[in-house]
């Protein structure tokens, strides 16, 4: 079949005597036109039989849509996530039917739990073959229903423009999330009268933002103004709402100490005087302990994940809770709120800021500083500044901070190195901490870093990955090789699946069960992909190696050999209260 680009078609149309308000195009062309209209500039994808008509169409769109051929669909969707997280735009992913589509599932689940806006397009067998166990047919809609914000199967090309518009609207509005459109091959090929692309801005059954109720803002402000020991917990909602400025204004006027969930990192700079650190299982000492001492908790765009709360029945029982969230289902889900402030925090925060008193909670803030000092003495100092023994993960991140001045985007994988990176990396800017938070997807790091680079081409992107997680998606080195994403890959190699090993050490009497993992020669591996690389194990060589990596033109792989049996502390052991956090 001869698929033509829109431009050729338009020329043909205008040259015909009678004027038409539509042009005849294939479903595939309509799809690509829609993507362009939505501002898509890069697509991460992998072709296959059932999505071939779309790939045939994209052949003529190479100047308008950049397509990055990944090495595995999981890599494609994680790249889409990285792109969405660094750019604040919707990530777009293509995959074929059957195995192509099922390979997206991990990324969809990850994007769903971390509220990442994605539009995934999967090819599907011809409509007349649906349900016949056709070659590469899977029931993608039903497989992906639990892990998508919305999904839809298109069997008729005429539906493509409106369904795509709906998909983008749903993916990026309200609490964002992944959307999947499954398009049967006949619909991709079908010619229809295309009347242009109309973006969607209303679906009658979907309310992206709850209405703001002023009386609750007033009540919340009253609680906050009366509080002696108020404490702010902020999450990714601030980033997703693009409300960093509004958030900073609120924090600075109210003078309330603020701590972050790992996905909220960077909403205000790490070094901000009211930023008291990280929440959660491996978060900072003060924020965890003082959660159980504050009198008013102000939770902003965070969802009280179990890794943040520890044991729920001993979590902040003394405190009143003001919960700001855009998703009504999050209110009272895990922790009962005293005043629910439903709405987009970009809208609710300024209203609240207006009503809160300008204050400085000097004594209360000093309490956080005391805990910080205790944590520095017990944990941080020796982690960041060891003078003997093998390298620690903490000192690597610390040196990286010094060299990048907190300006880099840090993409981490999952495990000990992730906790260390989140704890010690400095984030001057929003959207600089990209990690798999809710799902904890090992293998996320490398492809997400590739996507993050496309989403923020002017930033230095450093992927911090463990030796285990790297081996889960290392095939994406091929994507870097072919398309040249300038990603600095830093493997922190402790020759263990470190986080599981840590738990086995602490809770399973050091019965190290299948956590001893061997690795290939990562530097040689990089070399075989024509990626420069180096291995470093000596303290004296660390800074120069990091410099070499950062100054290298193009992608670079630095393997850092770190101490084998180091533990991440502090730690709130599972089933314990946040105030039972251990320093060792």
């Amino acid at each position: 079949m001869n698929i033509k680009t829109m431009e050729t078609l338009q020329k043909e149309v205008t040259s015909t005597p009678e004027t038409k308000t539509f042009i005849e195009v294939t479903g595939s062309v309509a799809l690509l036109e829609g993507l362009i209209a939505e501002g898509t500039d890069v697509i991460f994808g992998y072709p296959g039989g059932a999505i071939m008509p779309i790939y045939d169409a994209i052949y003529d769109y190479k100047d308008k849509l950049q397509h990055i051929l990944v090495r595995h669909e999981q890599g494609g969707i994680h790249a889409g996530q990285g792109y969405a997280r660094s750019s604040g735009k919707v990530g777009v992913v293509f995959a074929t039917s059957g195995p192509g589509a099922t390979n997206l599932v991990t990324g969809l689940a990850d994007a769903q739990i971390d509220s990442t806006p994605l539009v995934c397009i999967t090819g599907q067998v011809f409509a007349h073959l649906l349900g016949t166990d056709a070659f590469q047919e899977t029931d993608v809609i039903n497989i992906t229903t639990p892990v998508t914000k919305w999904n839809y199967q298109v069997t008729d090309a005429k539906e493509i423009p409106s369904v795509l518009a709906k998909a983008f609207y749903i993916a990026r509005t309200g609490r964002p999330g992944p959307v999947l459109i499954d398009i049967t091959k006949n619909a991709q090929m079908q010619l229809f009268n295309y009347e242009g692309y109309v973006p969607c801005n209303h679906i009658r059954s979907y309310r992206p933002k709850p209405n703001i109720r002023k009386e609750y803002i007033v009540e919340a402000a009253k609680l906050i103004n009366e509080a002696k020991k108020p404490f702010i917990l902020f999450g990714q909602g601030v980033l997703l709402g693009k409300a960093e400025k509004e958030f900073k204004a609120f924090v600075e006027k109210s003078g309330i100490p603020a701590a972050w969930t790992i996905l909220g990192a960077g909403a205000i700079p790490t070094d901000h005087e009211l930023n008291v650190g990280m929440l959660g299982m491996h978060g900072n000492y003060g924020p965890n302990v003082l959660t159980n001492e504050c009198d008013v908790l102000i939770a902003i765009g965070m969802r009280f994940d179990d890794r943040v709360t520890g044991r729920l029945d001993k979590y902040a029982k003394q405190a009143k809770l003001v919960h700001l969230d855009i998703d009504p289902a999050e209110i009272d889900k895990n922790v009962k709120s005293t005043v629910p402030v439903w709405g987009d925090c970009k809208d609710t925060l300024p209203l609240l800021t207006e009503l809160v008193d300008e204050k400085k909670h000097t004594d209360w803030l000093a309490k956080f500083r005391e805990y910080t000092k205790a944590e520095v003495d017990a944990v941080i100092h020796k982690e960041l500044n060891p003078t003997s023994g093998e390298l620690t993960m903490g000192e690597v991140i610390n040196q990286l901070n010094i060299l990048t001045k907190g300006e880099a985007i840090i993409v981490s994988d999952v495990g000990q190195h992730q906790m260390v990176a989140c704890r010690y990396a400095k984030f001057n800017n929003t959207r600089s901490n990209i990690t798999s938070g809710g799902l904890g997807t090992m293998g996320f790091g490398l492809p997400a870093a590739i996507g993050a680079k496309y989403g923020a081409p002017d930033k230095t992107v450093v992927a911090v990955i463990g030796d285990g997680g790297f081996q889960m998606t290392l095939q994406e080195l091929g994507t870097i090789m072919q398309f040249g994403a300038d990603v600095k890959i830093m493997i922190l190699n402790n020759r263990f699946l470190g986080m599981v090993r840590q738990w086995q050490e602490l809770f399973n009497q050091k019965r190290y069960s299948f956590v001893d993992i061997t690795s290939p020669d990562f530097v040689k591996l990089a070399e075989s992909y024509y990626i420069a690389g180096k291995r470093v194990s000596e303290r004296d060589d660390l800074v120069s190696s990091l410099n070499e990596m950062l100054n290298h033109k193009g992608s670079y792989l630095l393997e850092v050999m770190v101490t084998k049996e180091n533990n991440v502390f502090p730690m709130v052991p599972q089933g314990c209260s946040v105030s039972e956090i251990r320093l060792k």
Partner: protein
Amino acid sequence: MSTEHNKQEFTITVYTENQIGLLNRIAIIFSRRKINIESLNVSPSEIEHIHRFNILIHEAEDVVRKLARQIEKQIEVLKVYYNTNEDIIWQEMALYKVPTEEIAEKVLVERLLREHGARVVVIRKDYTVFETTGHREETDKLIEVLQPHGLIEFVRSARVAIIKDSEGFNAKLREFEREEPGQDVIENEYLDKGEKVFTM
């Protein structure tokens, strides 16, 4: 955690768009939490293209409230209510197939029909079909009576329920269709009515 003693029957009423796959999207909200759906009825509502689900579950109210919020979060769901048995009028319909010979000869058909508010739907030489409508206990009772007389087949519908307090959905839907709906129909309505009616 909800304990067995604070569990009770809740009827969840869901107004949705008529969309393929939505049944699964709603069903997995329960199955994911290992909650059994005791009965499920889906049918077109009084408004064209809008469907009404009646879902019966046995759960604690705090769990039901969270479930209702998760259901309402689905894109094609317009509105969710949950109600205890006191808040609703409900019925289930049942059909009973029995051998005509047996039933005509040995059972006092007339008394049986009167006592159970049943009616005969079909009479054939070989079998007769009775129908009755009521609460679970009522339809159960007729099984007990007919079982000794060679009950061949039995089927019962899902619960359908009308909410005592509800003013219907017609007016609400018009509000939904507006881009800026009035305050009274959306989200925070729940906050006003508290425990009585769930809505977001």
